[in-house]
């Protein structure tokens, strides 16, 4: 067999599953040999390299051929992919907003804005990539694990009016899946950041910032709210229509969030400097970060108030 065919089979072997490698390669070697011999009989001579190349092209690129022997053909299947896509967009939007805030502070306080801009761009790109990888991994595990959303196949319309999730309760209106996925992503990011499993890169600012002891009073209320909200949003994802009990629950939760945001807004010194890495004016950076925090809390309080008002209207409207 020619060098060309040997190289093709060598390439293909490297991509094949280890246990079947020799067996598959032997079968394909025989098939290639048969195809070459058939062409040679028709032409009455040995094939040139170009002609052998044509035979191998008929088999396909080694990577593509080897891939067809693998049992798993996709990382995230079609059932879960739409939710994965929403979640990925939501996570990237949220970290872009947060990254934008931190980048703004870095650019305003850095002695060399251009250098700070480059550092921010490089660090943010790396952080966004990690976030995308985590979302992809979570959904890959969900798709290929035992929890394959089998409730989607076990759907029973008769169960729609069961218990507290009754559809008999008005008003009934659809909840856009992107909205729910966005809220799930932001709640997940908040929860992970709150328990310090997710740390935003603040070294762009030249200082390492952290939440001060003033947030201790808020720790368990925020933790409980995140967990309850996560569960509520999970139900919204599975049953994407509003019901009176669930609107009432959302109203209560948003009132609680509003209270947390207002109290946090009125609390001073929520952030402190953990380490000065290279900043020449750390107090200025801290002040800017505190302004950003206050502004964010104000905006979140306003959003919560709007959501409360919306839910009140939904509940009183017939």
């Amino acid at each position, binding site marked *: 067999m020619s060098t060309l065919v040997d190289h093709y089979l060598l390439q293909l072997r490297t991509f094949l599953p280890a246990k*079947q490698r020799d*067996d*598959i390669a*032997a*079968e*394909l070697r*025989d*098939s290639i*040999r*048969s*195809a070459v011999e058939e062409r040679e009989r028709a032409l009455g001579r040995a094939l040139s390299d170009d002609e052998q190349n044509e035979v191998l092209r*008929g*088999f*396909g690129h080694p990577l*593509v*051929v080897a891939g*067809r*022997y693998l049992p798993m053909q996709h990382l995230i299947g079609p059932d879960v992919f739409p939710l994965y896509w929403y979640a990925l967009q939501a996570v990237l939007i949220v970290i872009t907003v947060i990254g934008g805030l931190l980048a703004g502070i870095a650019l305003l306080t850095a002695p060399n804005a251009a250098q700070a801009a480059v550092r921010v761009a490089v660090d943010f790109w790396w952080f966004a990539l990690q976030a995308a990888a985590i979302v992809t991994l979570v959904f890959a595990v969900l798709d290929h694990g035992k929890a394959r959303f089998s409730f989607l196949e076990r759907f029973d319309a008769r169960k729609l009016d069961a218990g507290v999730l009754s559809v008999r309760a008005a008003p009934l209106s659809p909840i856009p899946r992107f909205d729910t996925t966005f809220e799930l992503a932001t709640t997940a990011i908040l929860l992970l950041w709150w328990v310090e499993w997710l740390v935003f890169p603040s070294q762009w600012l030249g200082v390492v910032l952290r939440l001060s002891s003033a947030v201790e009073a808020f720790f368990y209320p925020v933790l409980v709210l995140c967990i309850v909200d996560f569960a509520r949003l999970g139900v919204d994802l599975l049953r994407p229509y509003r019901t009176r009990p669930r609107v009432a629950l959302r109203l209560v939760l948003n009132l609680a969030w509003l209270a947390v945001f207002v109290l946090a807004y009125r609390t001073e010194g929520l952030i402190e400097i953990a380490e000065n890495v290279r900043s020449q004016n750390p107090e200025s950076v801290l002040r800017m970060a505190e302004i950003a925090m206050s502004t964010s809390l104000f905006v979140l309080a306003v959003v919560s108030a709007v959501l409360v008002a919306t839910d009140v209207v939904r509940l009183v409207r017939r």
Partner: protein
Amino acid sequence: MPSELIDKLRLELRRGTLTVAVLAQLKSEHYGYTLRKALAELGLEIDEGTLYPLLRRLESQGLLTSQWRQEDNREKRFYRLSAEGRVILKQLLDEWRALNAALDNIV
């Protein structure tokens, strides 16, 4: 009509029929090369990069059996339909005929 769209739809149309055709042809024993030739002579072209992985998948699903044997001084892997494969093939052919009849009524 864009050619990419036609190719994609054609691929979807062929995907299921290739499995039935391969199972049906393996009522008698073949190795990969002769199977491909037999299908081509009957009007169904299938490239090697698709056929061989399909044979392995069908074997892993218990629809085919295979063995290595020597022929013409070369080791070849011969495939044939298993007992379970015969049962499944009959069901697939019934399904195929029903779909064909339905499609004839529609078009």
